[in-house]
């Protein structure tokens, strides 16, 4: 299709991290991926517990994952920072008790 390999790699990382977040914190959710000629937009929407302090959640190493999640090798607090690093634009809308929506864009 002509999407650069580097963009595919970044999108894969963003979606992988986002997907793991939705599974461990929100019991899953929906992902929409929109492919445009110059960019890929990702919308990850869940109805989980929400993020109380987004700024804190964005810090590398910060995690509220349970012991069980840690024992499986996840929950290192690197998910959101990795998504931030690998996307060109990222926005988080979250309401505690209602859910979280993450918008990310990777440009070519």
């Amino acid at each position: 299709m002509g999407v650069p390999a580097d963009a595919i790699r970044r999108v894969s990382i963003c979606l992988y991290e986002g997907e793991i977040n939705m599974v461990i914190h929100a019991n899953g959710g929906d992902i929409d991926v929109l492919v445009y000629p110059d960019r890929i937009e990702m919308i990850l929407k869940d109805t989980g517990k929400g993020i109380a302090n987004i700024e804190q959640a964005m810090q590398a190493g910060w995690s509220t994952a349970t012991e069980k999640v840690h024992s499986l090798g996840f929950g290192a607090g690197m998910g959101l920072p990795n998504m931030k690093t690998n996307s060109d634009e990222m926005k988080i809308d979250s309401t505690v008790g209602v859910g979280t929506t993450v918008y990310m864009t990777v440009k070519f």
Partner: protein
Amino acid sequence: MAEFFHSVRLDTELCKGCINCIKRCPTEAIRVRNKKAVILPERCIDCGECIRICPHHAKRAVCDPLSIIGQFKYSIALPPPSLMAQFNNLEDVDIVLSALKEFGFDDVFEVSRAAEIVSAATRELMEKGELPLPVISSACPAVTRLIRVRFPGLIDHVLPLNAPIEVAARMAKKEAAARTGLPESEIGAIFISPCPAKVTATRMPIGIEKSAVDGVVAVSDVYPKLFPLMSKLVSEGRVTTPSEAGRIGISWGSSSGESSGLLNDSYLAADGIENVIRVLEDLEDEKINGVEFIELNACSGGCVGGVLNVENPYIAETKLKRIRKTLPISLNHPDIYELHEELGWDTAMRFVPVMELDSNMMAAMQKMARIDEIVDQLEGLDCGSCGAPSCRALAEDVVRGLASIEDCVFYFRSLHQHDKTEETKKEEVE
């Protein structure tokens, strides 16, 4: 797009239209149409895999005939290091070089010599730190062609230096012109090739406008002529042409030879086209770290594995090791700035998007969706009976307008059976 020259050709009389080659081709460049294989010229990288696999010997590498030597006032043989690995019990390269002269060449210029110069130049460029790491070798022409069509993101990593063959041809002609007073146009540099990719590389080079190599003959054509001459010269005590290359140069004949010439441990050497593809894919995904140089050879074992050789690649590698043992490290310590003309690329390597579905991404996305729909209608056996290497390749051909979904025998049969059941139903009603 420019006209393509390919060394790898099909002998339609010998081709039975079987599917061996289409399944083997690393760029999916072959289809069977009307019971004969067809090579798609824009996709072929001349790796020679189809020559290796074809049980009917219908795939061939087109080289120049040995008579090309007579076309020049002064002819120079360019023997590659892998040629030295073709002979039993050879311990002295000088015998091969002398036999080439006895055969009719006016002079000999070892490609190993140029290889030592390319090694020195690569070391220098890497020390200066101006190349994006890891640097990918540009010596194997099948690999550079593969990168050009499939790995656009890696083009910047390809070492922008001419392969030893090209450097050898340029140096040899310059030296001969100075010695004989003949113009370079009357001097012929003839390469003795282990593979078809190098034939193509001299006709349609990457990085330069025109190759200085004037002809390419096959190792398998030269070998039977050379062999008796070698015994004759040895028995008559007439081995007179001394080798001018050391261990680094001759090592280029097998995989990891080029890398070891860099005197740097941070390298990776992969050989065999499938392994090469795996390394390039991992490199594209940034999975390879801590490596400064990547040597890739399309043939298993490196150049000793070329399809135009006569000896088994692994035996050849062992022979190369034996020859190497007694040699000094390197005999060529050039000032690479003086050799800039011989070594450097004039034009940058460019991506050739032959795999692209459409230059317009929206159209490409629609085509991709259509391909997925077609793939769902196919059995997924990848049997090759339609003439395409896989169900997905057939779907792609259908979308490109090059094939019909009814080329699939299973799809065709299901249509036919459907018709039949309709007919029987009708009959029953009547």
